């Protein structure tokens, strides 16, 4: 499902203008990461996708719906939003009820709800924890419950707000796996994050925001190599990209394989010389 944002402006009550004219198209099935310093407007932008915020000026379209014309409850059938802090999202007594809440409210029949819940729990590795109270789980697993409760709604668009914050290596891998599976299912995945390494390894398109505007938008590898522009919004390129840049690699790299391929090549060239 296509997202089309035109000249979006947004001011919070009290006058802070958080978005100053953002235009953007995201096509069905894209994996998009939005990066930028604290206060750049990332969260404000994505809260427009499910109508939590409405434009002060400009339009946001989700498929053929203008978000101004549809309540959040309807928009949530198209856009699932996983909050940064799971505790802002969880309120049911068991993991099962929590995960089933969304699809039930979207009006799916009981068998379909059961199937959606089962799949979402399997994907987030929560199977077996159905009857546990979410607040008896560690924060890492509460995050997975929050993810599962959105995945179970089977929305064509999924928004992940800072998914890797405070997560350990295993949990980050689990989240990366979810992104991969959603992508294979043809869904659009949008994340906002400070974790550029996670972006580089899992997202194809990167949008850099600063001061309420889009500064850069393009393929991950090209965007993340722009050290100077990134610095203006306090973003550093991924670690291995920076390392490659410092070693004068002829083009930017974004993961271990690409780094080692390039380094082996340079090594062989030196050997011959």
């Amino acid at each position, binding site marked *: 499902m296509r997202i089309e944002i035109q000249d979006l402006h947004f001011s919070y009550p009290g006058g802070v203008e958080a978005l100053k004219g953002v235009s953007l198209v995201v096509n069905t099935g894209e994996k998009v990461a939005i990066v930028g310093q604290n206060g750049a407007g990332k969260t404000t932008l994505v809260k427009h996708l499910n109508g939590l915020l409405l434009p002060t000026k400009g339009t946001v379209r989700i498929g053929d719906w203008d978000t101004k014309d549809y309540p959040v409850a309807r928009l949530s059938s198209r856009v699932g939003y996983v909050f940064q802090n799971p505790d802002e999202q969880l309120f049911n007594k068991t993991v099962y009820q929590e995960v089933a809440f969304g699809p039930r409210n979207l009006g799916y029949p009981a068998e379909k709800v059961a199937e959606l819940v089962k799949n979402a729990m399997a994907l987030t590795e929560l199977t077996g924890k159905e009857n546990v109270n979410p607040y008896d789980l560690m924060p890492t697993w509460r995050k997975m419950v929050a993810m599962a409760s959105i995945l179970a709604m089977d929305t064509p668009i999924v928004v992940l707000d800072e998914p890797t914050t405070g997560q350990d290596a295993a949990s980050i891998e689990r989240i990366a796996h979810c992104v991969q599976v959603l992508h294979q299912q043809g869904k659009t995945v949008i994340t906002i994050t400070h974790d550029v390494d996670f972006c580089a390894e899992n997202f194809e398109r990167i949008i850099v925001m600063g001061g309420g505007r889009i500064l850069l938008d393009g393929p991950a590898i090209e965007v993340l190599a722009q050290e100077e522009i990134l610095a203006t919004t306090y973003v550093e390129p991924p670690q291995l990209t920076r390392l490659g840049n410092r070693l004068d690699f002829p083009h930017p790299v974004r993961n*271990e394989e690409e780094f080692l391929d390039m380094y082996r090549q340079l090594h062989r060239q030196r050997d011959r010389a």
Partner: protein
Amino acid sequence: MAMIDVQDLTYTYPATDSPALKNVSLKVEEGEFVAIIGANGAGKSTLCYTIAGFIPHFFAGTLNGKVEVAGIESQHSTLQELVLNVGLVFQNPFNQISGAKFTVYEEIAFGLENLGIPREEMIKRVDKVMALTGITDLAKRSPYALSGGQQQRVALASILVMEPKILVLDEPTSQLDPIGTREVFQVIKEMSNRGMTVVMAEHKVEWIAEFTDKVIALSRGEVLLQGPPAEVLTSPLLPQHGIGISRYTAVARRAREENLWPAALPLPVTLDDAVAGFVGGLENAH
């Protein structure tokens, strides 16, 4: 004298069977900056709470062993006495903010008000700490109308203003961008240089390598490793225990297996060390 002296500490939360910390022993000297790493659930937060006295004074449960902080044995004292010596910055700033104050400025002064610090002194200290943590321009905002990163700075300021001898921080930069993270690490390092003892639970290993004096790695409630950052953070044990390592360390380890990394050099944690090693590796190629 060790500012923090933990001996054979075992602690079990109420209504749970297995201990969250098992036979933990560690010492932190005055002015040292120590990082605690570990997978989620390894006991990092529990250790922070214990050093800060929230265990056993706020969370009940069963505590065995000795926890001595600034010369006070925490089991045999009160939280009030400990608070004068130890400040704890929570992982989620939402848990820190008092809810009793309408502006950031008042929020930061709140702790000092409770200690009965004279007004003039209070103003001086609040102004200083707000400048230090980069939040001077937020003074009149509501603590609840801030971004996660801004709230984390307010939470840090509200503890620093108390000038504790020991500062305990539970992932204080989790919601900050890289520049914000650097600023916070610099402020904390500066405090440590001035003699404050610092213990910080943190996942970001490159920052730990750059700023801290010592690293304690926890796994399933036990101390897995403790020592200098460059040693602990490059240990092959970390990935086996679910602890993230720097991408520089990971890629250099693979390069070393192919003899592309200089044999004499330890594995890197930081960018500068990685650059030095990989440049060296190319120069050795013949």
